[in-house]
């Protein structure tokens, strides 16, 4: 939605001095009508993540925006648990989801336990065959194809298996292109990474960290996860607001 800023057009053009800002502006607008137009960001719709604490804080994952969920690659963070919960919620709503699995790390058993509707999930396993492109490039290329095809309610690109320096080398223009493509579609584009890379192109950035897990006797039974909103589509919550929640083991 675009609106033009007010311009004083009470005086005819030839009566204005040549160097006034109004003249310059009028001349520019005559050639480029949208030069001084401001774009209003549309109101987002959300897909709930299924984690109450995150939904209360952010409203869920925004449609028409790029979201990053970040967590450590080697230490426990809980990012995959949040992802599976999100997929379960989205498939339950009847949305078709796509999971671009850069490192072929998705565990269908965990997905089934989380309640993901597999019939609504397109799973793309990258790097399993010898192709011209490397697995990381494949993941981005597939994401591009999926965004062009439209119709998917949620597209998740999991690149958290790749070393962080590799993902850092992805040009900023790529992230910018994704953010511009997704903003015109009723699709949530989610990247699972070790660290945020999309900078201002992301509408929402969540950083998930873990606290020490709980062992009951000889069994791992519970993990506690803390969420920080690094970047939000509107006013960012206070830095000190870091809700935490518990995740139980499937066998607990």
């Amino acid at each position, binding site marked *: 939605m675009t609106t033009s800023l007010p311009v004083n057009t009470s005086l005819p053009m030839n009566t204005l001095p040549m160097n006034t800002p109004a003249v310059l502006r009028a001349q520019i607008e005559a050639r480029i009508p949208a030069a001084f137009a401001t774009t209003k960001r549309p109101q987002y719709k959300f897909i709930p993540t299924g984690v109450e604490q995150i939904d209360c804080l952010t409203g869920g994952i925004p449609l028409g925006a790029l979201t990053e969920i970040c967590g450590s690659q080697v230490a426990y963070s809980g990012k995959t648990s949040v992802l599976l919960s999100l997929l379960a919620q989205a498939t339950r709503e009847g949305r078709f989801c796509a999971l671009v699995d850069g490192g072929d790390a998705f565990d*269908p058993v965990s997905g089934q*336990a989380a309640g993901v509707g597999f*019939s609504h999930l397109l799973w793309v396993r990258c790097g399993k065959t010898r192709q011209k492109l490397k697995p990381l490039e494949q993941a981005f290329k597939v994401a591009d194809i999926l965004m062009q095809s439209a*119709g998917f309610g949620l597209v998740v690109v999991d690149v958290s298996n790749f070393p962080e320096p590799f993902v850092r080398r992805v040009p900023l223009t790529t992230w910018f292109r994704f953010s511009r493509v997704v903003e015109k579609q009723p699709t949530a584009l989610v990247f699972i990474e070790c660290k945020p890379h999309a900078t201002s192109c992301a509408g929402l950035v969540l950083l998930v960290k873990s606290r020490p897990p709980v062992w009951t006797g000889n069994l791992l039974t519970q*993990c506690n996860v803390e969420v920080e909103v690094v970047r939000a589509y509107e006013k960012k919550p206070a830095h000190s607001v870091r809700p935490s*929640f518990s995740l139980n083991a499937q066998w607990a």
Partner: protein
Amino acid sequence: MFACLHVPDFSVQAAFRCEPQSRRELLNQSSAVILDGPPTLLRVIAANRPARRAGIEIGMTKLQAETCGVVVARKRDVQNEDAAQAALLDCARAFSPLVESTAPGTVILDLEGTAKLFGSPQRTASRIARKSREFGFDLNVAGASNPDTALCAARGWDGITVIAAGEEAHRLARLPLHVLSPSAEILDTLEGWGIRNLGSLAALPPIAIVERLGQEGLLLQKRARGKTVRTFIPAEPVQDFVETFEFDDPVETLESLAFVLNRVLQQLCARLTSRALATNELRLRLELESRQLRIETAKEVYERDWRLPLPTADAKVLMRLIRLDLDSCIFSAPIKKVTMQALPTKLRPSQFGLFLPASPQAEQLEVTLARIRGVVGSVDENGVACIGFPKVLDSYKPDSFAVRSFSTEKSKPGNCDPATPAIAMRMFRPALETSVEIVNQKPRSVTLGKRPLRVLAASGPWSSSGHWWKRPSAWARDEWDVALKTPDGIGLYRIYLDRIRRQWFVEGVFD
């Protein structure tokens, strides 16, 4: 009311039917002939009007024909003519279910009761002529109250002709005798009598004709008067949707091939659409040019089947699927002939929900999946598909899953309630080989990335085994869930000892 569709110079038009519109028009304006016979003695069996004007006659040799000016010559392809006749029938079936295959290049259809649907006979004939151009024909259409009059009119006049009931004899009077297709003997006799047109034949006394020419002569006279009554024999609709195209010069580039494939697909889809059908299986056969040095490869062909989860008659979607597949093909020789077959099926009924979330369009999704397959590949080294929806297999073996083909049509909205978020696992495929230090029958350190990491807590061993009766696929393992001290914090990993190979592996990480 009957309508007759007559394709003048059918063999020539059948040969050029799969050419693009602009080239077809160009060929219709220039001399074109069809040759047949042994390769050393090819003779002209059909010629178009410009060729006849240039002096080319049926029976001339190729050399004789070429002396009459610039001539486009093609060898006769019976398969192609059959396909053209089937296409002509399909074109007619778009207007009436009762269609008679009268002769090659000529069909008659019964239009009784279609006036409310298509309008007056004149308007129906115009529609038929327009529709026929989609099928690559430039034909004559004639409407009359009986099939034989319609047939004579279509053979006699170019374009659209409609003869009202009662005017048959009057309208047919000026047509030449050959529109009746008499035998050569009778035609000679009639010409000897000075009979040149149907009006002269119709004026002769019937008894005298029977005395001199027999029953055949009488039948010809009845046709000339437009008063024949015969049984209309509708043709059975064939389910064979095949189109072929043979290149004059074998092609080497994909662009040239795609150009023809597109045209062939358009023909097939037009035929399917006219019969309210679609296809869910497409078969392509490319015959490659035989190389003289290798006689054993004389029949070198490339064959490919595409099975679609949903029936479609959209030529653009099918073309993109074929193009994506052919992009990755390398042919050993230039392509000589293209044969494409579409297996017909009923159109897909679909019901959309007003309040359902948007979903990918089924036809578009197939193209998207084909493009993704081009990027990530089709199947991995274990034969599991790289793209589709996951399915957990009913097996005790860990990480047993299958990937099924994804479709928006088969899938139903998820009824299962999402469970409470739980600890999930990320797999390493294949599992990472590692070394584990065991102290007091418990892991003390695990090597990850050439770095030993101290075990803070361990849960196990959880023993399992299976397939012990099939030695190559037998498995036996002792699993441990371990908490490792990593530089980023505590990492929770699943490791296992393969009891058959006596080797430790890291199966995945909890996340």
